[in-house]
């Protein structure tokens, strides 16, 4: 679905790269995530892949088209949701979708059904200019799936949404993926990456540091932890111990043998913890 080889991009057209030497491939049916803090180069990469930014250096193939020689018809197979919502404020939600729908040559989804899907059906005939930020974001999101895209670009799909709506969006992404849609998403939210992505790329300062599945990452980089709450001299103590470090393992044995454990559970390292370990920086 996507092949990227040696991609560089500089807004100032010099050596000051926003994206440098990015390589990855996404196969059909996959949900692939770019995880990285703000300014890492996620949106820039999506911009080049969707043809909105000119390709300067490197090879990019998207849905079988070389992005250096794009054909307009390729966009029938692609859906793009933007980080910053961009809809016509003077048109209603429904009019926005109906206008956009008619720009495609392929069969499109029913606008009203989509509005219902994200809980905007009651404001279908309200001008989008009067919408809250979250509502505009949802409108931008559903607009990107009007043409039933084979490949779906989602730039920060849940950022700025309240948790209930964010989880609704995640469900829709999962559902569409189940129906066969390939997804490229960017996020700085480790939970989104963890929950949705088959594979994630850690990106920072325009460079991909590693690509793997969240599960593999946790297996390889994340040490499993055990959190134990135990009584020591009648004082409740809480300790987090690694199952890999010998010292921690010995300590755990010691606690178990004293037998005053109140509670004990294992805890996985989060993607963010792994991210910090790999890149030396956090996601915020």
């Amino acid at each position, binding site marked *: 679905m996507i092949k990227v080889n040696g991609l560089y991009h500089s807004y100032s057209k010099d050596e000051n790269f926003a994206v440098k030497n990015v390589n990855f491939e996404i196969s059909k049916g996959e949900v692939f995530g770019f995880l990285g803090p703000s300014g890492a180069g996620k949106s820039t990469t999506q911009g080049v892949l969707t043809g909105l930014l000119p390709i300067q250096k490197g090879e990019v193939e998207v849905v079988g088209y070389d992005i250096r020689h794009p054909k307009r018809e390729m966009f029938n197979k692609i859906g793009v949701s*933007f980080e910053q919502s*961009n809809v016509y404020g*003077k048109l209603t939600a429904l009019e926005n979708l109906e206008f*956009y729908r008619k720009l*495609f040559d392929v069969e499109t989804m029913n606008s009203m059904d989509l509005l219902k899907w994200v809980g905007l059906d009651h404001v279908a005939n309200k*001008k989008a200019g009067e919408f809250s930020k979250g509502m505009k974001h949802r409108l931008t999101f559903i607009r990107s799936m009007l043409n039933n895209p084979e490949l779906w670009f989602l730039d920060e799909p849940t950022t700025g949404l309240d948790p209930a709506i964010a989880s609704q969006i995640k469900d829709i992404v999962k559902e569409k993926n189940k129906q066969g849609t390939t997804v490229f998403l960017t996020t700085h939210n480790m939970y989104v990456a963890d929950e949705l992505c088959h594979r994630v790329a850690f990106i920072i300062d325009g460079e991909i540091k590693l690509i793997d599945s969240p599960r593999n990452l946790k297996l390889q980089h994340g040490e499993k932890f055990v959190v134990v709450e135990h009584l020591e001299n009648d004082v409740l103590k809480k300790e987090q111990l690694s199952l890999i470090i010998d010292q921690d393992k010995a300590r755990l044995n010691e606690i178990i043998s004293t037998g005053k454990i109140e509670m004990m559970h294992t805890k996985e390292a989060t993607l963010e913890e792994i991210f910090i370990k790999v890149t030396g920086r956090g996601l915020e």
Partner: protein
Amino acid sequence: MRRILNFVIRDIKSGTRDWLVIYLAAAPIMFALVLKMLIPSVGDSTLNVAIYEDTPPAIVSYLETYAKVIEVNDMEERILRMDDVFGVVVNDDKVEIVTQGNEMEGTVDLLKTIVGRYQNESVELPIEVEFSDIGWVMSPMKLEGANLLIIFNTILGGMLILLNLVEEKMSNTISAINVTPTKRKEFIIGKGLLGFILTLYGGAAVITVLGFEGINYAMLFVSVFAISFIGAIIGFSIGVVSDEPISAIASMKTVFIPVLASIFGAIYLPAKWIFILYWSPFYWAYDVIKDILLVQATWGQVFMNSGIILIITALVFVGLRKRIVNGLS
């Protein structure tokens, strides 16, 4: 085609929401109505004749029955002034007409007829001969005003294009359109079409309100269409780099300067100075539309002027092309 129509319908919808399209559509009618009120009635338009003090009184009184006669010392200076004044000079019973060259056609013929009649039939004047200026002269205010409004309108059309593009730039919806199968050509035509429709409609409104008879509408259509491009291109070039309407309109308004300069230049400049307007497409538009309104234009003239307009427009486009293309991506 489907997509082009989609853009036009969207622009109409969006434009009627804030009355923009309605204002711009009403403007030519309003202007024409105001102009109509200002136009003096037929009887008021006069033929102005300048004479020397020593002109024989018989001729003076003869001329006074048809024209407003003024005595001057410096004939040449008076005639070269910006209004339409003809000179009548008498040398040994020979009457000569002095013109500047930029007077309205028809008026000269009229004066020639009057003078000719005087020379042939001597002082025996058929007093009952009256003439009205219908068919001969048109009120200059109506003629020049209509011409000005028609050309002015093309800029309003450009302004509509401008504002619809600014809307796209402001909401960053061009990016959304750029990830659909829409071809750039379709977008440009779709975004420009309404401006052209407004321009042509505005021209028709001006003609209808002011009431011109017998003019060749096909010639007018071709000429107005040709001059519409320049406003459209300027509208595009400003629109695609503006994300805020007030400053965009302010930039676009400066286009009225060459428009007004060209038209007033064409009206008031002496014939030998007209060439300094040759760079301006608005001058060429004015030139041919005037003859169309006077029912004097030929297709040859229409094609020549339109050709010149389109060549100048093409040069402007070459200069602005990069800016437009960059702005659209």
